[in-house]
């Protein structure tokens, strides 16, 4: 007599309702705007009306989510699942780039951002990738320098820490 092994029940990751997440996010945004509002009927009438409209839609979405309407997504955030790592790193690069534009100057920060992020985003990294990324970063910066400073006269941030 053969004994059949019971099927292994795969652990299904918990899922959350999109409507619920959207409703909570909207509610949080509305709360920031309502709590930061001042007094004075005419000046705050319009923003407060909009913020309370957001609260209304937020409640509607939360109720829909609780009732089981709409799509579901994994409850664990994409970053913790490893799927959002690229987005988080690129967003981080963008923030660091803008923060560094003042101390090290716009052009140096731009060249570094263009070079490093294109290397990070490359699927294969070899000598050619590095050379190509460096050439693109330099060409973009040089062309933009001529165009922005000598055609459009855009005063871009100058370095505070460096002499250029």
């Amino acid at each position, binding site marked *: 007599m053969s004994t059949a092994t019971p099927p292994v029940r795969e652990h299904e990751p918990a899922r959350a309702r*999109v*409507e619920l*997440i*959207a409703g909570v*996010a*909207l509610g949080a*945004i509305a709360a920031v*705007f309502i709590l*930061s*509002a*001042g007094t*004075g009927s*005419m*000046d*705050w*009438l*319009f*923003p407060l009306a*909009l*913020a309370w*409209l*957001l609260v209304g*839609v*937020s409640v*509607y*979405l939360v109720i829909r989510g609780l009732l089981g309407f*709409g799509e579901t*997504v994994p409850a664990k955030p994409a970053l913790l699942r490893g*799927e*959002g790592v*690229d*987005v988080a790193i*690129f*967003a981080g690069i*963008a*923030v660091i*780039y*803008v923060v560094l*534009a*003042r101390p090290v100057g716009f052009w140096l920060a*731009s060249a570094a*951002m*263009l070079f490093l*992020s*294109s290397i990070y*985003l*490359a*699927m294969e990294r070899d000598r050619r990738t590095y050379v190509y*990324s460096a050439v*693109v970063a330099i060409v*973009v910066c040089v062309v*933009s320098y001529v165009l*922005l400073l000598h055609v*459009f*006269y*855009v*005063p*871009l*941030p100058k370095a505070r820490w460096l002499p250029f």
Partner: protein
Amino acid sequence: MIEGFLTSIEPSYLLFMCIGVLGGILVGALPGFTATMGTALLLPFTFNLEPGQGLAMLGALYVAAMFADAVPACLVNTPGTPSAVATAFDGFQMTKQGRGQAALIASGFSALVGTVIGGLTFMFLAAPLAQIALRFGPPEFFWVGVFALTIIGSIAGDSLMKGIAGGALGMLIGTMGISATGAVSRYTFGIPELRGGLSIVAALVGIFALPQVLDMVSSRKTEYTVATFTRKPGVVLATVKEILRRPVNVLRSSIIGTLIGILPGAGSPVASLVSYNEAVRWSKDRSRFGKGAVEGVVASEAAGNGAAGGSMVPLVALGIPGSAPAAVILGALLLQGLRPGPALFTSDPVLVYGFAWSIILAGVATAGFGMLLSGALARMVMIPVRLLAPIILFLSVVGSFAIRSNIVDVFLMLGLGIAVYFLSKVGFHPGPIGLGVILGPIVEPALVQSMALSQATSMTSVFFGRPVSIILILVTLVSAGWVVWSNHRERRQRRSDVHAEQGAAS
């Protein structure tokens, strides 16, 4: 009029017009750089020119920038100026389907039609239309804004409620800074730079460009480029034929754009959004919009360029600029010692009609350059994501900073971009948020001023008692009612399709 035409085709006039067109294409194609900036930069060069030559150059730049803003909108979903927001809805989808060049050709051809209609209106109907535009007070502008908001129904995606919330959020973001009525600091969070208000351009770059870049980054392992480009012989003719199969769309959009352009303060962003909404409303198959319908690109671009011509009507006939670039052109007229107004048509008809002809010719030149360059520009989508994403980030930072030389605008752009990226993952379309940012600064002052007016009379008479307001309310009700009805019809159709499939399966 004929003398004006003959003047406008003099070689020196054509040369300055071409300089304006090329400058406009450059300015419009760079995200964050606006036609206002371009005309302001060219203004000092007009001092030593004849008035007509200077006007031809500035007018041409304005017209060309209104077309060229479609280039980044279609290719990388980044509107070059606020007027191209609606162009991006379908233009970028066309690019993703490998029809980027067709999208650019459609933009160029529609811009031509819009410019010609706007220019002809300026030439023949300037005086009477300018008088009608003067009847628009705060209540009418409020209703124009409310009417434009009904576009949310067309661009909200799957959820109308999320679209409404997105529009409200956009308008709420737009209230940052010192209020126009009581000079109260709102939502500045202790940052002095925010008192000057939100830079609409920086906000739109953040709302549209950055989420797109983050999307590119997240799918870089499966999608090496944004889209593919294959050279298709005869694409120019095929696209023009496709547009001309529905001539009403391009004509209606051009007329809407021209009429809204005449209203001082409304401008081409409102024109292109209203026109897009009408294109969706009049279409037999609205489900195609937002998924690469060429009519969407046509509607937005024809209206944007129609508005450029339309904005010259109050400028020359009354001395009231209909848009920001028109204000710079007004400056050029005043610097040349000319006083805009009805008398200008009789005192210097060659200049006025020559200017109108220059705008029309600039439309022709812009369309020509646009179609000629469309193939080369469309190849931009073949740049690998690993290079394109950082370059768009670089241009977004430059564009956000360039308007006011304010680093806070850049941080705001980044913050909004990251926030909108996450909101888009839970079903909020960036379109309504961008729409709110554009319309908020039009709707709020009009609402507050109307309420102040109503203190002298009554709320009912101010908001509902004026003939133009009544027409706008009726149009708004029809538009909103149509959205609700068509959504209901689509849901019913989907349900019956599901029942039919289930019936066939059993």
